[in-house]
């Protein structure tokens, strides 16, 4: 069963999501990856205001390829999330409601998710051309000098992902592989 979520995501919708659920997201999401996270984190450490309001938002860990003529965006699959683990708890504590990426997270991120009632979605790594079909519009919000790593706002329709870690800390990367492990 696939759950359809309209963004911005509500606390009630987050509580309703269980690890393993298939989800289609519609609305707007932010993007950001390594270099942008480093800058945002440094501003938080200095007690300064962020150039983008992250409250209530989802952030997609992505660095898209350029868009060909006639395309709203270029191929845009998820990048490995663990590289943002150092920065994610600070963003979650400031009101970020969730993250979209791929792969495992560390305990500090999971603790921050549980503490703040947040969700972590996995998109399919390496399915960038397919995923881009669900991204209808992009707008650069800040850090344009970072090129592919700039922070963007994506308008998405039925963006496909899976609840990898829910707000109670249930984690598909822990629960699913062991079911098929025979070594």
């Amino acid at each position, binding site marked *: 069963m696939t759950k359809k979520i309209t963004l911005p995501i509500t606390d009630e919708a987050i509580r309703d999501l269980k690890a393993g659920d298939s989800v289609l997201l519609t609305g707007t999401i932010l993007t950001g990856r390594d270099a942008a996270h480093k800058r945002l984190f440094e501003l938080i450490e200095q007690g300064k205001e962020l150039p983008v309001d992250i409250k209530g938002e989802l952030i997609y860990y992505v660095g898209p390829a350029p868009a060909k003529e006639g395309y709203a965006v270029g*191929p845009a699959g998820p990048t490995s999330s663990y590289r943002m683990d150092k920065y994610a708890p600070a963003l979650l504590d400031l009101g970020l409601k969730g993250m979209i990426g791929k792969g495992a997270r560390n305990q500090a991120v999971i603790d921050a998710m549980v503490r703040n009632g947040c969700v972590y979605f996995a998109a399919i790594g390496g399915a960038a051309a397919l995923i881009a079909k669900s991204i209808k519009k992009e707008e650069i919000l800040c850090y344009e000098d970072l090129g592919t790593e700039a922070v963007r706002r994506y308008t998405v329709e039925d963006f496909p992902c899976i609840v990898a870690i829910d707000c109670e800390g249930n984690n598909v990367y822990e629960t699913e592989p062991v079911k098929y492990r025979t070594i």
Partner: protein
Amino acid sequence: MKFRTVTAQEITAAVKQLFMDCNYYIGGDIMDALTKARDQEASPVGRNVLDQIIENDKIAAAEQIPLCQDTGMAVLFIEYGDKVSVDGDFEEAVEEGVRQAYRDGYLRKSVVDDPVFDRVNTKDNTPAILHTKIVKGDKIRITAGGKGFGSENMSAIKMLTPSYGEEGVKQFILDTVFAAGPNPCPPIVVGVGIGGTFERAAQLAKKATFRPIDTHHPDARYAAMEDELLESINRMGFGPAGLGGNTTALGVNIETSPTHIAGMPVAVNICCHAARHASTEI
């Protein structure tokens, strides 16, 4: 001695085409393995992920867009014939091919100039990583690939010593793949380099990821090790996208080299299912 002359423009055009092709068109060996895995995958989520990957790769080919947004760092294995003369700067001709492919082919520019301090994007995906070998003949053979770093980051090298033997080699490879878990975009291709020196093992591991996965090491003992490792990896349960299942790897390729009496270096270069490489001869 008679030399055949190749123009710098020919080199540039060939390199450009290789990088565009490998980023748009997944290899037949990978597509066959994905299709076979789809039929054998036990996990319903895993089957769904494989369906999406197959559909993704078909969209990329049909629309000539990159199949993955991480179009990689440009890596080239070049066999340069000793009877060829290039009228110009050979390495610059290769770099120009990379530059043009990443610019005109809508590929992502993913290279930063300095690894630790500046980390400023070079904006044209250069410099490339060139492995050039002089061989006999009047041809230049180029194998090019875009290496994504989600999987590159999960790679490892260890200077094993002779007493580790076959078991020690297999254990290190399996430990590396297990530690990578869901991160390198499984199902993965595992490139292994055994022997040589520290850097030769790493280079062989990369070369192994560029070898078609429907081939084997010419020595039957290593070929058997490839099959055995593939089976063991697929029993780890990570599955497609790491969401559980029995397709964690599509292939294991081993390349070997003579080594020192005291050593047995092993390098494991992990590649995602978007194992992109293409070859041409000039």
